[in-house]
């Protein structure tokens, strides 16, 4: 019913190609997250699905209906905007009921559905307030509530948490996860925060320049990135990429390996003479729970290392070791070499 199929979907603004042929299948009830660098077309893709942008070429299906030319309101999707887009002149109740009213849902039914959504989102006490009287997190919930009342088949979220402060973001993230669990709807979620992507997604779609780079579960992307771009994009601090020669100390490399990736958290500090690689600590950044070391390798590259306990002084010489299962090998084209342990 509410699966989603994209076939060679394309979008041009004037002569600029923004989406350059995207194929994607989203199963009913799946939580899909779009990530990618700024300007890669995440929002555009989402807006094409919602119908706010028209499709230049390709086919877009929701369920088994081609919806390329169907009006947004008739596609059975609901969208939560980054800015929430709450109507400032309506109170919470009317904001949530607005779409139903426009669609001429009778009053009592409308009341019922708003009340239901409000209960679900713990908004009961706020129904009479106006958006300006709400905190960021509350607004966000109202925006979701507005989406819920229409009983959409598919939920679309465009960076819904990016306006919140760090703490609230963590909290709302888990609320959205809980919501998905309860409703079981198909959800498509755009973010540029990869922690959000990792924690929420059933399936992550990594976009770059209007093309899909990789589709997979968070764990797949973290553990087996298809290419250097995905490898560096997923995970924070980002993966160290060393030329094959500099990384020779880590052990055997598959044929054709041009560079080797290793995540900062997978490196450990040992005495300089016992390390697979060695170098000098340039800066240590203490963050409480862990420290981030910038290590200048003897081969010239700088390598980031995350360590938990006490960190060596700046300028100290250190050795680095890594488990071979944590190494990623990439060919000259940047694609992962899968033959060795893949």
């Amino acid at each position, binding site marked *: 019913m509410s699966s989603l199929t994209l076939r060679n979907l394309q979008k041009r603004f004037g002569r600029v190609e923004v989406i350059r042929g995207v194929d994607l299948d989203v199963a009913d009830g799946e939580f899909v997250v779009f990530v990618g660098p700024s300007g890669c077309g995440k929002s555009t893709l989402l807006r094409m699905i919602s119908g706010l942008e028209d499709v230049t070429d390709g086919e877009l299906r929701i369920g088994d209906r081609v919806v390329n030319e169907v009006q*947004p*309101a008739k596609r059975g999707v609901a969208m939560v905007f980054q800015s929430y887009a709450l109507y400032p002149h309506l109170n919470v109740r009317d904001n949530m009921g607005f779409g139903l009213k426009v669609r001429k849902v009778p009053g009592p039914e409308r009341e019922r559905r708003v009340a239901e959504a409000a209960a679900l989102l713990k908004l009961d006490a706020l129904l009479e307030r106006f958006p300006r009287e709400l905190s960021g997190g509350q607004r966000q919930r109202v925006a979701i509530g507005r989406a819920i009342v229409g009983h959409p088949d598919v939920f679309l979220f465009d960076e819904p948490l990016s306006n919140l402060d760090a703490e609230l973001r963590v909290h709302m993230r888990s609320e959205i996860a809980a919501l998905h669990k309860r409703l079981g709807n198909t959800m498509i979620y755009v973010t540029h925060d990869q922690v959000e992507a990792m924690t929420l997604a059933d399936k992550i779609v990594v976009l770059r320049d209007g093309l899909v780079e990789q589709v997979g579960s968070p764990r797949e992307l973290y553990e087996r990135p298809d290419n250097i771009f995905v490898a560096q994009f997923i995970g924070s601090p980002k993966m160290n990429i060393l030329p094959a020669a500099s990384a020779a100390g880590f052990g055997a490399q598959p044929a054709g390996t041009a560079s080797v990736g290793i995540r900062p958290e997978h490196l450990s500090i040992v005495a300089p003479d016992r390390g697979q690689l060695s170098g000098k600590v340039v800066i240590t950044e203490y963050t409480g729970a862990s420290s981030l070391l910038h290590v200048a390798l003897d081969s010239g590259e700088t390598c980031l290392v995350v360590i938990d306990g006490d960190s060596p002084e700046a300028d100290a010489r250190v050795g680095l070791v890594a488990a071979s299962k944590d190494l990623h090998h990439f060919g000259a084209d940047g694609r992962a070499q899968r033959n060795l342990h893949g």
Partner: protein
Amino acid sequence: MGSLTQSQLRLVKQVCWTISLCIVAIPFVFPFLWMISSGLKGPLEIFGQPSLIPTSFRWNNYVEVFNYQPFARQYFNSLYIAVTVTALTLFISSLAGYALARLRFAGAALVALFLVSALMVPEEVTIIPNFFLIRWLGLSDTHWPLILLPVFGPQGIVGTFLMRQYFLALPKELEEAGKMDGLSRFGIWWRIALPMSRPALAAVAIITFLNSWNLFLEPLIFISSLEKFTLPLALSNFTDPYGSPLWHLQLAATTLAVVPILIVYLMAQRQIIESFALSGVKG
């Protein structure tokens, strides 16, 4: 001076500023004081030795103003015409401004260019053909030309542009949310875009209202019946049957015409300034 702290220095500066502002304000304020005072004088006293305080207050001037010509009716004419023009301009220019700012269609840039060129053409240029046009439409000596010309003339275009600028700066998401909620385009404009563009609407309303309220050339040309006069015409019409001005009545009437607007302005001044600031009149 050395002993003054920064905040004391600031205070001294502020006082100097305020005093110089007061001096600059004299030519702005004085005409009003003089007008109000003279509107309470007798016809002889106006020509006598200048003094701001009338020797006796002739409140009767205000009664005579209404006896002399249908001043209440004329006042009402001005008011209803200005309100109508304002309402129509708001309606039309916000529709057009919305389309220019928000809708994608071939020729949008051309239309905008076309309209903007109109801003540079003084009304005087087109007044003569418009005179014949109005005559041909059979609308001479009616209020129609006073409504139609401002609404569709350069003034209306100014409104369209103010609205367009404002809509351009307005976040799109609300309207898109409306679209997702199933609103028609008209519904989006009416129920979302308009309620959010109050500052711009206010700015357009103020400019349009003042323009209509002060319109002089058009009424001079198109209106001939006394009871169809608007205020600016009526004000220049306090003459005796032989054409001599009746200054005391004219000034009393002028006071009546100005003071209400001033009071409204005073009450709304903050919103007025803010609406100009917010609506991007700055260009």
